């Protein structure tokens, strides 16, 4: 391999141009989204696989409970709204958008938590042992858990962007790229929320 030399700072990680660092960070986040996407795909696969199999007619057992499709969309809506507002905020370079995104994450997270706390699927057997009614209930709770995880990570990122929006010490170019990177994440969790909502709409 033949090589020559270049100036000292050209490929220096600590001295890279903010846009170079920003692009790199966005690539990294997108790769993590691929991993998270595989997890979400696995959950949806599990849902429809067990639904199709309906072992012992226990996808939703006789007398079992289900949740209305609207429940999924109620918790997906804040994710979708947050992704749209954040995109607009990045384009208009408005710091207020981060505040709305944070609010959406908190409200959506609360709604998801409330659904989890009041799910009607838990039954009791003769021995007083509690269990989930059927495969639908099992899948629903894991999908809801994944949404909750997305809300927690989203809230962390939104809080960071919100706080940093008020600090003058950050590099504006790098910060702009970080907003773009965050946008990739918010867009993805909105898509994931919608996919989960669509999935749980088909009972």
């Amino acid at each position: 391999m033949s090589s020559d030399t270049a100036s000292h700072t050209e490929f220096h990680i600590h001295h890279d141009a903010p846009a170079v660092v920003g692009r790199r960070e966005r690539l990294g986040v997108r790769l993590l989204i691929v991993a998270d996407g595989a997890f979400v795909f696995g959950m949806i696969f599990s849902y429809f696989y067990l639904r199709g199999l309906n072992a012992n007619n226990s996808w939703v057992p006789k007398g079992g409970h289900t949740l209305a499709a609207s429940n999924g969309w109620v918790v997906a809506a804040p994710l979708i709204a947050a992704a749209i507002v954040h995109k607009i905020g990045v384009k208009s370079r408005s710091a207020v958008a981060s505040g709305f995104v944070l609010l959406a994450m908190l409200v959506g997270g609360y709604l998801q938590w409330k659904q989890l706390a009041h799910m009607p699927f838990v039954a009791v057997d003769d021995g007083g042992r509690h269990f989930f009614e059927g495969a639908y209930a099992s899948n629903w709770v894991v999908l809801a858990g994944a949404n909750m995880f997305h809300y927690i990570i989203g809230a962390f990122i939104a809080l960071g962007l919100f706080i940093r929006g008020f600090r003058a010490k950050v590099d504006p170019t790098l910060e702009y790229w970080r907003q773009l990177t965050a946008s990739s994440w918010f867009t993805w969790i909105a898509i994931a929320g919608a996919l989960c909502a669509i999935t749980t709409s088909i009972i």
Partner: protein
Amino acid sequence: MTTLHNTSTHSRPIPNPSKSLITKLNMGTGLVVGVIFAFAAYYAFRPNADTAGFYNQQNKALLAAMLFWSVGFLIGIGAFIGPFRWLIGKDLTAEEQLYLAGDGQGVKRYFKYCTDHKVVGIQYLVGVMAMLAVGGGMAMMIRTSLAVPGGHFIGASVYNSLVGMHGITMIVAMIIVATGPFGNYIMPIMIGARDMAFPRLNALSWWVLFTAIPVLCSAWFLGGIPTGWTAYAPLSVQAGPGMNAFVATILIFAVSTAVAGMNVTSTVVAMRAKGMKWNRVPIFVVGATMSVALAIPAFPTFMLAMVQTATDRVFNTGFYDANVGGSGWLYAHLFWIMGHPEVYVILLPGIAILMEIAPVFVRKPLFSYNAAIMGFAGIAGLSVLVWAHHMYISGWTPTLNGPFMVTTEMISVPTGLLFLVMLGTIWRGKPWMKLPMLGLFAVIWNLLIGGITGIYLSDVPADNYLHGSMFVTAHFHYTLMGAALTGAVAGLAYWFPKMTGRMLNEPAGYTAFWFTQIGFQVLFLGMFIAGAEGQPRRVVSFAAMYKYSNMISTGGAYLVGIGFIILLWAVIHSWRKGDIAPQNPWGAKTLEWTVPYPVPLENFDEAPIITSDPYGYGKGN
């Protein structure tokens, strides 16, 4: 030839951000905080009479303790200082970042949250060697128990746990055996980068993995893992408390794998030296990147399988319980959607290392770089379409056995390309028969046997007979141990001078090579015979008709054990007292050989510009 000249960057003042918390945190504080978190979680979730009917309290408390141990350790070692400082808008200063990189901290940096990719590479190397030693020790106990029919050297339940613990320890070790040490230490230098794309995440990937090791070991004190490494449901749901350790280990390991895979891929895509076009990237970098990129979408399905196992065990969901609408097939699907790509996650870097070595020791260009790329890409692409060949006899949709047989057998085509590249490179060459080069010949032989026996197993009628037999065990050991591990050991022999500054003891290395390779053939050819005769795997007692083949296998195992002990001695002895290595002992042309030992903190004082491919041997440049 390269024209780089490097000078050490260690002459600058040692950073000392004395007021920063990061200077006070290390592995010790991590252990303390981790143990406190584990006990606190166990206490908070301990079995409680009020809620005893709702959850499986013991599983919940143990699983919580294991996961909180991991989180606590990471807090204690300072892994979350960076994200927290980002959150509050007070980014780490340049001095703090330099401190985190371990500049001027000597041996202490290996016990800290150090972001230098070379430190992380050494941490991975030592960790992998420890895991292989423990896993190998367990293999010796298994083979000793199987030396004679009815030889109850160990009890049946301990034997079951040994098989499971050996399997998962070795699988974890093999997944990181090449991309961990060499992907971290060597690869960034090979592509002309000053560090990994995300240095803090790089350290995170190692320390997250580190926290999984005591969790896995805890299984021994909780009744063991009775399921084998595949942890098939519903057996894993019904298993005792030791199974929680397996579940927690995989959950933790999956996080480490995702972070590491993302980091390596980002580094190679975004941080290559100027002029290093894709057709100039060293073949090891290509193979390692395809391996980790394949792991990024593959492992989350295993993680999901473990999440579902955990919720079945803890919250009484019914993913794998047919009584409440679940199915063991679901687990098998999720597991093998990860499991078969994982074989190639392990194999590709080992083969890529040998392709890196071959041109150097034959002094010829790599034969058909493009065929190697097509081979890697073909294997990676097809590997996600073959998982159900592990489920032929499970009863799951027999009509799909045919298509999965075809996709599985198609993998032999890109695998053939890899053989073609390796054989084409050494064809009519005059190999310099140093230790790394011996590995190439061993792998050509071992992978040929592992690959051909894989074609038998991909064939539905043959698999109906051979499934679940010792034949399968021998087949995948030929692939994983005979090819991937041998490739990684060849890589260690090759890059040892760059990573330690010393030459690996050659006589000891040759002795270890011949002991392991001869022993390996004896061990697993004996196992092929036993399997073809019908001996099932994972059973502690076998019929007298298999006694000779098992005796032969156990004899081979002892030879392998002796070989690896000699290799371990050679590595430790050479690391401490070996001959000082010249900068480029093999006369290789890739960039890592242009930097001195110890490699400067940021590898290159002046960034290289690449003007030709890395295998221009015999071309006068």
